[in-house]
């Protein structure tokens, strides 16, 4: 169902650009912490693939085995609170999640996601207007989130221009390389 809807949406929009994402929703509540996203017992490894195998393990044991490339996480307030571990957005990215939409993000997770090029959007209305298993289409350039099941479209909070530069470069490392004139 999800694939079909995404395909139709893609045909409708006639795009192949990466700025538009589409996927099935995994929904969680408030204060999803980094121990929930990737338990610390797995921090003796650091590649996205290894970490993805244990993503969300302690709060949603089916996530890692059932998540599909392109899926979207939708969550409540303070997503990614707790530790500074970059392993958390790496695990999510490694699992194939294309975007995280939340009411708000914990500060360090917010930085980490932007730094490694994991798209994240803050949008309270999109969170309340979306159920698990529905399909979202996300337009990163416009900051819009469309629920393809209900047809509703939501506008996410815009990024400051400096951060748009980091996001546009593909993360903090390519941004820094460009700035230092080595990229």
């Amino acid at each position, binding site marked *: 169902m999800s694939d079909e809807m995404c395909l139709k949406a893609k045909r409708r929009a006639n795009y192949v650009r990466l700025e538009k994402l589409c996927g099935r929703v995994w929904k969680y509540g408030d204060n999803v912490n980094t121990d929930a996203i990737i338990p610390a017992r797995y921090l*003796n490894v650091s590649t996205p693939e290894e970490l993805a195998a244990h993503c969300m393990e302690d709060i949603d044991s089916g996530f890692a085995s059932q998540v599909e490339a392109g899926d979207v996480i939708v969550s409540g307030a303070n997503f990614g609170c*707790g530790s500074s*571990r970059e*392993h958390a957005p790496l695990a999510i990215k490694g699992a194939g999640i294309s975007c995280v939409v939340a009411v708000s993000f*914990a500060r360090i997770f917010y930085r980490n996601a932007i730094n490694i090029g994991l798209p994240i959007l803050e949008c309270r209305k999109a969170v309340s207007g979306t159920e698990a298993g529905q399909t979202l289409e996300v337009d990163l350039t416009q900051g819009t989130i469309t629920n393809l099941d209900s047809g509703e479209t939501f506008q996410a909070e815009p990024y400051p221009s*400096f951060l748009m530069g980091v996001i546009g470069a593909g993360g903090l490392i390519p941004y*820094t390389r460009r700035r230092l004139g080595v990229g």
Partner: protein
Amino acid sequence: MGQTIAEKILSAHVKRGAPTGGEVSPGKLVEVRVDMVLANDITAPIAIREFSRIGVDRVFDPEKVALVPDHFAPNKDMKAAEQCRQLRDFARAQGIKNYFEVGRMGIEHVLLPEEGLVLPGDVVVGADSHTCTYGALGAFGTGMGSTDIAVAMAIGSIWMKVPETIRVLYYGELQPWVGGKDLILYTIGTIGVDGARYQAIEFAGPAIADLPMSGRFTMANMAIEAGAKAGLFAVDDATRAYLEPRAGRPYTAYDADPDATYTRIVEVDVSEIEPQVAFPHLPSNVRPISQVGEVCIDQSVIGLCTNGRWDDLALAAEVLRGRQVHPNVRCIVIPGTQGIYLRAVREGLAEVFVEAGAALSTPTCGPCLGGHMGVLAAGERCVSTTNRNFVGRMGHPTSEVYLANPAVAAASAVLGRIAGPEEVID
């Protein structure tokens, strides 16, 4: 216009002409110079990998980088051993002398202040969320991820959003057995786990003047558990006395201007506060010790970066002296540094712990994050002086962690259930 402590420190470190702009007011993005960049054996491997992608050969200043193998060290398994080796090899290759080997190390946030590596007015960024601990010294310490730390190691500066500040004023006289841990748990219980998200907290008021440095470190350490970017104290005589034997360079002490702007002022009458216990699974889920009820425990963990300083161990020893750990309980004591460990040996605390039937460990973060040295089985309960009690934090997802101060953790170890020290000491 008046400035908060955070605004003053960031103003003194702002890098002019950076792509962020340079206006130091809440909500604005700035690039700031850093005085110390920190990573550990969990976060440094990614930082080193990302550093190698930047295209610079050397760290910006090997004197201003600290690498501490503390989380899964002493090496808990082969994969952890490889991560620790990456840290060690990178430190050697880069000439980083602030690398602390097992046997000479400590838990980073206890170690760096003890070594005089963080001083008032500094900006410290660390790939560890509890880098906010340095706020106890009037330094702007904040946690970031590994990629941020890689960039800070490469260029000596990093972007930040200037935070708004919440001021928490503590007044009144502390009850017996109440300290920094209880004040911060109570505060998190009041404002919530995201009550200070993206903001700085200034801890102030007359009750803070009476609080020893150990208690201030504990409070600043847990500022992140309210979502804060930094948790800051003004420098006073207690800070200067702590720094006197440690500071090897001049420092600048900042206090807030009387007309500084705060987003919120919270007042706390500490005389009303009993020892606090944070129930699973959030640090904000606090109850006073009198309202805990019957909670039997399997383990008690005392020490680590939140409560592993000398005063903390002395409090626990006061409760455990001449008593026995309950037959159903494993009590694990982890001093914050080898220096504190050695003092515990010299001054008899080690004997108290071992005679009581507790395990006394070299410094490691191990059990706090379910790594090693005290991982919990399914359904087990632990009272711990650490800072997080999330689902699965110390082991199995069905295990439970209750956060408390060292005297409560020690008394609980004796009685086999969560209890205040007054139940143990007549």
